[in-house]
């Protein structure tokens, strides 16, 4: 934790709404600094980006004031980054939800829609760690119609997947690559287990 007492920078959603991740951080005793285009992060603290809404809408709100570029350059420079829900999806190159809209392209691959079952996937699903990581398996809360598909042509793609889960076939529920971690599910709405994951990320990076 740095001198002014903030542990992490939390990107506020459109309209400045802090949302459920902020409340979760408060419960966990993690002091956060709310950031947006007008009050951008400077890379001195890890960044959390919770995305709510549609891929296209989140990208266009990020582009306002070139905030997307601020985020991208800080992440490329090594600032620890946690994306949540659509905050995970926008890390990829593109999404079927918004054809023609470029994502941040920080993780190779695209975001695709579930083709089976009730969509959006709504409820608790079990996530299993991939690649022998020390992250625990458990149940987390999902609300998503789309999921990220790390680039299969990329030989490193497998090592990118942190968690997988089943929704009429396996899908990527979380990624971890370098300083980037991202959850498709809502750790802040996933009870003690989910908040434990949030806490674990914070203690890893702060």
């Amino acid at each position, binding site marked *: 934790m740095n001198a002014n007492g903030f542990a992490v920078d939390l990107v506020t959603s459109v309209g400045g709404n802090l949302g459920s991740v902020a409340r979760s951080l408060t419960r966990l005793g993690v002091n956060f600094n709310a950031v947006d285009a007008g009050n951008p992060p400077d890379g001195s603290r890890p960044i959390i980006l919770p995305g709510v809404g549609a891929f296209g809408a989140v990208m266009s709100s990020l582009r306002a004031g070139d905030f997307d570029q601020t985020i991208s350059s800080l992440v490329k420079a090594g600032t620890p980054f946690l994306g949540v829900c659509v905050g995970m999806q926008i890390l990829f190159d593109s999404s079927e939800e918004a054809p023609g809209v470029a994502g941040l392209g920080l993780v190779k691959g695209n975001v695709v829609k579930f083709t*089976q079952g009730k969509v959006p*996937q*709504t409820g*608790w699903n079990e996530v299993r760690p991939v690649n022998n990581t020390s992250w625990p398996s458990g149940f987390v809360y999902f609300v998503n119609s789309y999921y990220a598909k790390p680039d299969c042509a990329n030989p490193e793609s497998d090592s990118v997947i942190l968690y997988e889960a*089943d929704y009429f076939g396996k899908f990527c529920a979380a990624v971890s690559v370098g300083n980037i971690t991202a959850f498709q599910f809502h750790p802040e709405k996933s009870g003690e287990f989910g908040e434990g994951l949030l806490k674990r990320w914070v203690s890893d990076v702060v």
Partner: protein
Amino acid sequence: MLSSGLCKRIIPCLDVANGRTVKGVKFQNLRDIGDPVELAIEYQRQGADELMFLDISASREERSTVFDLVRSVAEHLAIPFTVGGGISKLDDVKKLLSLGADKVSINSSAVQRPQLIAEIAEACGSQCCVVAIDARKVGCEFSSTKSSTNRSDRPAWEVLTKGGSVSTGLDAWVWAQQCVELGAGEFMLTSWDADGTQEGFDIEMVLAFSGLPIPVIASGGAKNPQSFVDVFSLGQADAALAASIFHDGLFTVNQVKTTLKNEGITVRLC
């Protein structure tokens, strides 16, 4: 066949009025059963997957207390929760969501003005728009001329509004299809034949609607853990909601889930 992996959800329902929890039997004869925030935390501890807060306040003044309640619940709760009861305006929906509710449930107001569903879906996303349908079986021949053709061989249910006091003449199946088209995210289906009876969920009704493309939360009639086994295995519900059996302390959420797991139904045990 590939499986979904998704857990069946158990949703305790807290009826609230003027900031306090009350319990309804056929939505009448209320009795105070305590502080909603304390109850919410207890249910989260027991393993509830979500919570439903149904505001049954009688007056506008009382109803405004729901905003403080939502703020307080959101501070303390780390599971999703839905707020319903008397919501008729998009502005109220936005306010409830900004205070921390994950979803809103609309009922009579949607029947009166179906476009409200589309407005919520457009502005806030389908995932937060739960349409509650109260219905009562009206036999195999639906009397209304509004009903579609080729369904005379099916059982039919009529939509009720205003806490069951108004018969709308609307075929619940036709209404449900319309809700899906308008952008509803989930259904909460309450059987007026089963509600408050504690004789088990209305399996026939739940099964009839479970094939809809959005999740169906079954409500009304939960008696014991076996009721939940039945509504998931026979009724194919995605989630089940109950009040009395949890409020009365007859069974904990965890006891219900343990029974479900023993019956091979996927649930989250914590």
